């Protein structure tokens, strides 16, 4: 491990983005309880360190793909909270004009392309972007964040084999939150430690504390440095826990409250706060960061509420007759 520690500035920035994400998730939880969200919403509270840590280690020109649970990646890669919130709320001002919805957000200008609700599909997506980079001789990398459920899909195997075979600059970040949808990891995976699979592709693997944003950041930085050198892909297993059910449609009853409580003690925001304190930042400043983030998200929701709903336009490019005739 040769990674640098993130600067204090970057640590603060990561904390801020985690706070934004947390505020977003909690607001969505409240709105859902009021019946004001649309479709299933997949919260990532408690897992913010993964999406934020990964994206913090990426550079301009690098790309990232994420899952149906991608809010931390959206915000981490620098998307405007207003655009993210408005998209989730189905407004014309959303990042995708309300067409995509919370699972499929993208901002191509930032290389965040994108959320993906077909489990596993973000893995070959990032691998294909890395292929493009290699063909063009670009110095960039692509990262994908995917779940422990997604690791069992065939497409994961095919993509990892090709990535390693061709030394593509891609970083596989397995966000191990211990559940697929309701089925625990142990009932989906034939091995208790998914990092062992990397050996099947001859690529390095590392397990990190997925609730420690600095640990995630460093692991990604390491793997990215390798990939930029032309040494190919690597696998990071970020160990975390899904606190809030698989989505707003979750009817519960299968998670162990004691386990949830144990993981809440290791809340990534708590850990990051402690690290900032240890690094010498004042408690007041840290709390101000969090409060600002909460205000920022509240403002985004207020703006989305006030924003117009989108107006339907047919997709002429997809129409099946020449000259767009229907």
């Amino acid at each position, binding site marked *: 491990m040769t990674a640098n520690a993130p600067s204090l500035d970057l640590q603060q920035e990561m904390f801020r983005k985690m706070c934004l994400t947390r505020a977003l998730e909690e607001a969505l939880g409240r709105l859902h309880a009021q019946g004001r969200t649309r479709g299933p919403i997949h919260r990532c509270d408690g897992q913010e360190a993964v999406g934020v840590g990964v994206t913090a280690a990426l550079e301009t020109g690098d790309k990232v793909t994420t899952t149906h649970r991608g809010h931390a990646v959206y915000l981490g890669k620098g998307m405007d909270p207003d655009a993210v919130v408005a998209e989730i709320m189905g407004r014309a001002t959303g990042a995708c004009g309300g067409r*995509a919805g919370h*699972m*499929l957000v993208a901002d191509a200008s930032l290389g965040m392309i994108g959320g993906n609700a077909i489990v596993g599909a973000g893995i070959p997506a990032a691998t294909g972007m890395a292929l493009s980079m290699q063909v063009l001789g670009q110095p960039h990398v692509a990262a994908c964040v995917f779940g422990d459920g*997604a690791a*069992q899909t065939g497409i994961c195997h095919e993509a990892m084999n090709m990535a390693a075979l061709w030394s593509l600059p891609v970083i596989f970040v397995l966000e191990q939150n211990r559940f697929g949808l*309701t089925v625990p990891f142990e009932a*989906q995976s034939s091995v208790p430690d998914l990092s062992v699979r990397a050996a099947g592709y001859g690529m390095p693997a590392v397990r990190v504390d997925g609730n420690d944003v600095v640990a995630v950041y460093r692991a990604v930085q390491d793997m990215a440095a390798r990939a930029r050198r032309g040494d190919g892909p690597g696998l990071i297993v970020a160990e975390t826990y899904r606190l809030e059910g698989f989505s707003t449609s979750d009817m519960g009853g299968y998670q162990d409250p004691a386990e949830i409580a144990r993981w809440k003690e290791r809340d990534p925001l708590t850990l990051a706060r402690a690290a900032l304190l240890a690094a010498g930042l004042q408690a007041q400043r840290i709390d101000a960061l969090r409060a600002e983030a909460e205000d920022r998200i509240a403002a985004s929701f207020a703006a989305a509420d006030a924003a117009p709903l989108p107006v339907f336009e047919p997709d002429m490019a997809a129409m099946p007759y020449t000259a767009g005739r229907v």
Partner: protein
Amino acid sequence: MAVMRYAEALNLALREEMEADPTVFLFGEDIGGYGGVFKVTKDLQAQFGPSRVRDTPISEQAMTAMAVSAAMTGTRPVLEIMYADFLPLCMDALINQASIYDYIWNGQVQMPFVLRTQGGGGAGAGAQHSKSLDGMLAHIPGLKVVAPATPQDAYSLLRAAIRDPGPVIFLEHKLLYNQRGEVTDAAQPPIGRAVTRRAGRDVSIFATSRMVHEALSAAEMLEGDGVSAEVVDLRSLRPLDLGAITASVARTHHAVVVNEGWRFCGYTAELAASIMEHAFDDLDAPVERVALPDMAIPYAEPLESAVIPSAQTIRAAALSAVR
């Protein structure tokens, strides 16, 4: 028997078939302890144990292939694919495996499996969780494809599907699970029979799945327009009950076909083509198709409701058919 929800009718059918036949087993994502994300398999794992009600990893491609080969070797698997949108992952098993063996192996094997899934829009679930791929499925030789619109048909057709000697794709609809209705085991319609849900004189509306209910609402409105509409619930997309269709068109001379999938090369294309082939002389106007426009299903409410076929769009189509 009783009034129950569509999801409960499915659950009952599964339970009864599992009780009657120890070779029936279920597998799919989150169908065990949790009872399925739409609760269709509720309590079945507790009754039948984890071997016969099995939670799977997220591996649709292999699961479907395994349903095919398990069915060849003495069991009757019932596979749940959580959303019809994931069926593209299952296509090799259906097209290159399930569909060919009965013929190319000269009847050496049977493949009595059921693939249950649910599709359709209207729930704000976005472009990857709202589709109906009915036309693609019904294109595949050797499969049966059924789509119940009522609790009674959910119950009866699922039982028939499980007992069928060949592969059956069983299409549920996410907006129908809470529909309530009387369910009896007196009526056991065979797969392949349409049913007239409402008689009419001026136009025949042929619809599938949830669109049957939209068609019935449209027929109410059309009453006000002075048009008497017949509504036929096809129930079985493949095999198609052509006799019921031509008989209805022979009475009304006008036809509207409704399906929630895309229009171009979709299921309504076949319906329109079949009707025009077999009832050309009876038709006074071209068959009107009501389908999803050829585009991705959008997320925001006003956009999604603009694309999903509805009573309004069916009514408009019926009016242009008769005028």
